[in-house]
């Protein structure tokens, strides 16, 4: 693995002359600066014409800046030989741009061929990458792009970009041309892939939801190629720097933050619990001292059975599983707060049960705790 590289924009500008602007040249760039640490996904997001694609194409010099510098691992891209630079940068675009006259395996091996890898190594690399993006090499390697679906072509596009193991990948609306269900799947697969690859990825989208989902860091750009805000998705949602950013991320930015946080980010609170066979009098006494007048009955192994209200507990006797009613939704550490809140609303209850990987009860999460989490004043989790 050649690892990942840092990317730095230093006062990058791009001006077009009046004639080019009249001819519909895309957005100019105005003093753009930001740093992306190695191994992170940085999403450039903004309305159309804000210059996000221009910024992306300046990294591999498909477009040359008018001023400023772009550094990869501290080296100004303008000083690198252009084809050599590009062969070290993966590139994925919305229209994919596979070569229609080459088989899938040949397409994937494009950069290795340009780099002069021997046949055997190229073939092995193609097959390895097809498998990595979820396409069976035996089925797909000898097909032509026209024989693939949009989603399959996009996977091949990702495999091709990864072929020479570049430390940086540029992705311009890579999942923009497929239907929402396939997009969701490709996004999730890509995030899982990235966990293993840890490439530095610069990703362009106009979709704020995609930016929030995919980005470790987000650059919000506004018209005229200006940087409006740079930060983690949660920081941008929690503290939009300007009215423009607030409008761009949407009035539902609080709800969007819920999709970013998971149950593991909260500290579940304890509940009054008992197990079948426990003494009811003792349980009544313990419940009466708690603001929540409910007793949670657990299996001997700790898995939750359900709730018993304090008044319905017999004064004497033992707890029985049949007394308990399962009402609360069950969450695990990975449940997003957005899903948790909607499950609470659907079940029409205040509290949900957090369980560990074995299903044993850990604690309670209430709708209030989730709401607290997205108050604009609450601290950023990262």
């Amino acid at each position, binding site marked *: 693995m050649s690892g990942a590289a840092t990317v730095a924009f230093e006062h990058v500008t791009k001006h077009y002359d009046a004639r080019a602007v009249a001819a519909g040249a895309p957005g100019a760039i105005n003093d753009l600066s930001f740093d992306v640490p190695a191994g992170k996904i940085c999403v450039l997001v903004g309305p159309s014409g804000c210059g996000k694609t221009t910024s992306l194409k300046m990294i*591999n010099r*498909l477009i040359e800046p008018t001023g400023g510098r772009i550094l990869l691992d501290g080296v100004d891209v303008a000083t690198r030989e*252009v*084809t*050599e*630079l*590009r*062969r070290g*940068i993966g*590139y994925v*675009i919305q*229209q*994919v*741009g*596979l*070569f*229609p*006259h*080459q088989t899938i395996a040949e397409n994937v091996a*494009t*950069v290795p061929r*340009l780099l002069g890898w021997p046949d055997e190594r190229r073939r092995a690399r193609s097959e390895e990458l097809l498998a990595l993006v979820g396409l069976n090499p035996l089925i797909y390697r000898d*097909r*032509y*792009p*026209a*024989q*693939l*679906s949009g989603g399959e072509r996009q996977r091949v596009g990702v495999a*091709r970009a990864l072929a020479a193991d570049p430390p940086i990948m*540029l992705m311009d609306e890579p999942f923009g041309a497929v239907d929402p269900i396939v997009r969701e799947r490709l996004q999730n697969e890509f995030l899982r892939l990235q966990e293993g690859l840890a490439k530095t990825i610069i990703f362009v989208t106009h979709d704020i939801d995609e930016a929030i989902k995919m980005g470790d860091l987000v650059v919000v750009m506004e018209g005229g190629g200006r940087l409006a805000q740079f930060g983690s998705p949660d920081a941008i949602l929690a503290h939009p720097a300007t009215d423009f950013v607030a409008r761009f991320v949407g009035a539902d930015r609080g709800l969007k933050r819920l999709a970013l946080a998971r149950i593991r980010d909260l500290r579940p609170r304890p509940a009054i619990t008992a197990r079948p066979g426990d003494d009811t009098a003792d349980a009544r006494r313990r419940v009466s001292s708690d603001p929540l007048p409910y007793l949670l009955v657990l299996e001997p192994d700790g898995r939750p059975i359900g709730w018993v209200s304090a008044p319905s507990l017999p004064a004497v006797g033992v707890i029985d599983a049949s007394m308990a009613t399962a009402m609360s939704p069950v969450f695990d550490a990975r449940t997003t707060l957005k899903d948790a809140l909607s499950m609470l609303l659907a079940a029409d209850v205040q509290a949900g049960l957090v369980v560990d990987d074995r299903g044993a009860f850990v604690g309670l999460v209430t709708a209030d705790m989730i709401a607290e989490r997205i108050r604009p004043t609450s601290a950023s989790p990262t």
Partner: protein
Amino acid sequence: MINWGWIVEHLDELAGRTAQHVGLAAIAVAVGFAISLGLAILAARQRLTRGPLVTVAGIVYTIPSLALFAALVPVTGLSILTAEVPLVLYTLLIFLRNILAGIDSVAPEVLEAADAMGYQRATRLVRVELPLAVPLIVAGVRLATVSTLGLVTISGILGDRFGGLGFFIFEGYRHSFATEILLGAVPSILLAIGVDRLLVITGARLTPWAGARPSA
């Protein structure tokens, strides 16, 4: 009507004339293609040359063929050049237009991807643009070949060393001998149809990707 006996007596000559016909056309198509490919590459790389090249080829194409054959006689005599120069010139416009249309037909995102992968200009032309232009280039080869096979007939005006099957037509016309006219006309039509089919099949072999459709 038709003197079959005469035809049988002249089968050897028919074979010879057919070979000559194919030979004259093949040279013209091959030379015309080579020149056009060079010009098309020049036009694709130096955009400014494109307009003038296509215009000149277009003007040449409008010159009547009979006039051009005749006009060359004082210059080149009755040599093979007199027959081949017009034949080659008439292919230029067809080839040039089709090769350029083929190069133009390559999708912009394919070119962008090629650039971003680190193709150099010349490599991109040879490995991406020209292969993708093949369907339109093959269409040009078919058009130019069929048109040249027709024009070879007219070069029969230059005498019996030229014209291929067209020589029978001129001779038959001179002697008002319908059988000989038909011996020139019918095989030249069949030849054009046959060669065209052959080129269609060859084109399909060259571009297995073009017929590729999603498989279930």
